[in-house]
């Protein structure tokens, strides 16, 4: 039998697949029919992951930079070199040393990477790379419910009666979850999408609120306000099981429902109808995506508060559900790849937690949370000198100039990546199908991905490599497999405490929390048996709606496209998705901005003509794509061209931090 079962490790959906292995090499892929998440489906990326896994664009040997060039060396030489250099920063490691973890690494590799940073190199400066939104969602959910993850589950999408999709085009980002939502809609569930663009999921929804850009939050607030005013919520349940409604209700005072149509473009009656349906529906789920096109913490808070008010945060077929774009983004946070976290969202400044880790790791950890690596890089006086990077996902490196100025950079990765150009030492590590490992998908499902081929060029798996680095610091880590690492994770992590290798081998994963109380994990967050009260998320109550002006008459929204995932760094090693990417480039060599026909006519431009886009912060040239998917006054850019990001979008860091899904007022001119 040539087909070996396993896990698609592309996005956070966590679909099941088979890889065809011929003579020890990958030669095909096929969907898995009875996998509980994917049920026989794969998306365009999943259907071509074998092309990526066949690539020879791999790091085949450890390398040290000598006279400006990377030279191949042995593992021992590379690790000696790395340790010798890193030792120099030992004294002030908490400011001088940083670790950038990867959402592509397995739980075990992320855990060891995190342990290496804190226990061996004595720094808490560790950040999850390639993400800019999931942590905000986790914070909102953790503070509100005590659970830092999706409260619902993918497997119950088909059974829910009401689905709210906020922003993301889920059919492009997490297509199989989009498929589940579509199937639910076909079977009679009500699907409501709030999005300024007529995306595919918007077209497949029962109702599409094509709002004016930047008015998501106030629309969510209006839904809540109507529920409050019409007393559509279960007052007793809210009184018994929640706290903080008063503050949330106060924030809604700033919304004048008479003006809501003018602000959002959606009339009061339509909003009121949806508010009623949400409350009366026996079950409901909300979905939004994380990442650059994802939502800010305030908007996530409004989604959560709206669902808490409607009594749909937990319970059967309910849930508030952030979607992860990269395979182990959720798992990375579960493994404590954040300045202030240890595993399972345990806080490093909690003395009892710290003591547990200190005695298990036989070390003395610093109780002071570290700093975000990108904050350190952005601050010229931060004192950051050395950086260790795991498997960088993107083609673009943020703060490249600042990283070039660092004294020492180590890159630990599987595939060739531009980050290697910045590294003093490069250390290869086995890829996802070359090593046993667990991955936690967006619905908290911890799944086992078995080794399916031997490592490329005999490079080492993580459970072997990281202890070798620790050994250089005279620290003995005793693991002989990934399973050993998982055992240690389970022993230190309450939400993973019941997870064992044997359980994972028997089925298609376990959804944490898995512990003594829930030995088989938890399908959904259970409100009934949860004695704690839920907290409404604190919100500012400010609704600043970006407004077009005569100088900048368009509002620009941005998103990731399907085939140009992460600036095509991964897809460039495939054939068909790469061809699709090129097909788009052929038509729009500078990337494109979508505007409607009326706007194009007013600007006197045609499809494929180049225009100049200017904002208060910068400008760039892109091509016009005339599309009826956007309304007049709205411009949409899927970002996939390097220059679009480095020279334009990254200049708008403040806008992205401000949130409101990064709406940028722009001017468009013919060139």
């Amino acid at each position, binding site marked *: 039998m040539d087909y070996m079962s396993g896990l698609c490790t592309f996005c956070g959906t966590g679909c099941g697949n088979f890889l065809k292995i011929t003579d020890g090499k990958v030669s095909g892929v096929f969907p898995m029919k009875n996998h509980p998440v994917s049920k026989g489906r794969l998306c365009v990326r999943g259907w071509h992951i074998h092309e990526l896994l066949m690539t020879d664009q791999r790091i085949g040997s450890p390398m040290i930079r000598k006279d400006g060039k990377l030279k191949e060396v042995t593992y021992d030489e590379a690790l000696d070199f790395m340790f010798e250099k890193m030792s120099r920063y030992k004294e002030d490691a908490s400011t001088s040393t940083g670790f950038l973890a990867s959402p592509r690494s397995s739980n075990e590799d992320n855990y060891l990477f995190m342990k290496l940073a804190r226990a061996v190199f004595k720094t808490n400066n560790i950040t999850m790379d390639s993400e800019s939104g999931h942590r905000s969602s986790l914070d909102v959910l953790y503070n509100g419910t005590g659970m830092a993850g999706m409260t619902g589950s993918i497997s119950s999408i088909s059974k829910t009666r009401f689905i709210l999709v906020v922003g993301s085009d889920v059919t492009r980002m997490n297509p199989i979850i989009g498929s589940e939502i579509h199937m639910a809609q076909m079977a009679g569930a009500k699907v409501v999408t709030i999005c300024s663009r007529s995306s595919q999921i918007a077209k*497949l929804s029962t109702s599409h609120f094509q709002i004016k850009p930047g008015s998501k939050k106030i629309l969510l607030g209006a839904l809540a306000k109507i529920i409050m005013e019409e007393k559509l919520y279960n007052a007793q349940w809210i009184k018994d099981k929640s706290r903080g409604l008063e503050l949330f209700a106060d924030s809604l005072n700033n919304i004048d429902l008479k003006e809501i149509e003018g602000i959002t473009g959606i009339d009061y009656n339509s909003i009121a109808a949806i508010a009623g349906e949400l409350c009366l529906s026996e079950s409901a789920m909300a979905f939004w995506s994380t990442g650059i096109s994802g939502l800010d913490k305030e908007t996530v808070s409004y989604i959560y508060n709206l669902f808490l008010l409607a009594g749909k945060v937990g319970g059967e077929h309910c849930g508030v559900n952030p979607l992860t774009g990269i395979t182990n983004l959720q798992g990375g946070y579960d493994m404590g790849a954040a300045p202030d976290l240890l595993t399972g969202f345990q806080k490093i400044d909690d003395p009892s937690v710290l003591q547990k880790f200190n005695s298990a790791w036989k070390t003395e950890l610093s109780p002071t949370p570290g700093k975000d690596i990108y904050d350190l890089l952005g601050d010229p006086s931060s004192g950051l000198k050395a950086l260790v990077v795991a498997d960088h996902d993107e083609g673009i490196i943020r703060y490249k100039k600042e990283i070039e100025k660092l004294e020492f950079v180590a890159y630990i990765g599987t595939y060739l990546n531009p980050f290697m150009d910045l590294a003093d030492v490069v250390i290869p590590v086995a890829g996802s199908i070359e090593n046993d490992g667990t991955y936690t998908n967006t619905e908290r499902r911890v799944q086992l991905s078995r080794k399916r081929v031997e490592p490329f060029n005999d490079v080492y798996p993580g459970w072997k490599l990281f202890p070798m680095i620790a050994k250089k610091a005279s620290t003995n880590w005793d693991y002989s497999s990934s399973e050993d690492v998982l055992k240690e994770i389970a022993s230190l992590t309450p939400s993973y405490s019941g997870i064992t290798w044997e359980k994972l081998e028997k089925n298609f994963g376990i959804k944490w929390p898995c512990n003594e109380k829930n030995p088989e994990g938890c399908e959904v967050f259970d409100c009934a048996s949860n004695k704690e009260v839920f907290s409404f998320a604190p919100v500012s109550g400010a609704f600043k709606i970006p407004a077009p002006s005569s100088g900048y008459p368009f509002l620009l929204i941005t998103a990731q496209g399907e085939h140009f995932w992460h600036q095509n760094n991964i897809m460039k090693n495939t054939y068909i998705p790469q061809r699709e990417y090129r097909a788009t480039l052929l038509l729009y060599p500078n990337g494109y901005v979508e505007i409607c026909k009326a706007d194009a006519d007013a600007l006197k431009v045609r499809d494929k003509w180049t225009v100049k886009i200017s904002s208060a912060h910068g400008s760039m040239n892109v091509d016009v794509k005339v599309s009826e998917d956007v309304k007049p006054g709205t411009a949409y850019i899927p970002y996939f061209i390097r220059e679009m990001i480095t020279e334009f979008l990254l200049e708008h860091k403040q806008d992205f931090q401000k949130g409101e899904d990064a709406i940028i007022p722009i001017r468009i001119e013919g060139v």
Partner: protein
Amino acid sequence: MYLIEKDKVMTIADELAKDYELFGPVVEKGTGQVFFNRVANSGEINLRAEIPTLPPKATVFPQIETIMKYRYDKDTKDVLIDPVFSDRKKALFGLRPCDLEGMICLDRFFIGQEFVDEVYLEHRKRMFVVTNTCVAPFKQCFCVCTDSGPDAHEGFDLNLTEAEEYFIVDVGSEKGAALVDRLGLKKAGDEYRKIKKEIVDKSISLFEEIATDNKAWISRVMNRITTGFIKEEVWEYIGNQCFECGACSFVCPSCSCFNIEDHNKFDQSTDRLRSWDSCSFEGYSNMAGDHNPRKPVEDRRNKRFFCKLSYSQSKKYLRPGCVGCGRCQWVCPGDIGLPNVVTYIRKEITE
């Protein structure tokens, strides 16, 4: 027509394994999923397994394969070309009739026209095919609507039909006759023609309602698709549900679209690869000079159903392109497997 005892049927496979690489339906242990795959011995083959998820087309048209290697020497301007052909002899044992019909469509596309695809021909020409009559349909099967089952009519060397204590063996070629001769199978009496017909009729009676109900409708829909009478809104409704994953084409026994890529390697040599492709992709129909005759997704979608169900296309295959296996239905993230498309079009006709 011959007979072989049930417990001896694998001797046919064993005999074939002496001369051929043996392929057949295999149940994957961990998941229970069925693949049509190469086996080390006949013991791995399960003739009662449900229709394999992976169609046997992969044996003649692999998901990705190297069809040529070349090296260009910049100094001497010499090109060394090394065509890669498969000279493996393959025996496909236990093929479902619909999948054989699919392969016959592929034959007509790759080698039945003016241009003969040598790579495909080399895969195909040393092949021994043993089909297996479906004594009961599987979920989502609708071969009764597309004239491709539940029993095979042509193209096999041998065909097996499970009867009470025997397998009835039909001979479809000289190769098949020679094998039957070598194994010394006993001749079946005339009554077995009737027995086989009863088995097939019973199988037909067991089809789910969607298949029996759609039987007449598929030909009406073919008519509609051919004459272009389907409203644009219907194609748009179908197109909106296309996630552009390509799965329907990949699992289709008769889909033949492929892509060619030259993979340049570090050592200056190049592998020319051929891989499965799909008309649902925008880049597939992209032409030089930025033209794309099928840019909107609904145009790409209806192209596929044209290919499966129009008369003009059927003239090429000498049958409808759809063989009624139902695979496109379970891999589709939208809800536009072929039987559903027929249903949508039917709804439009009746409303």
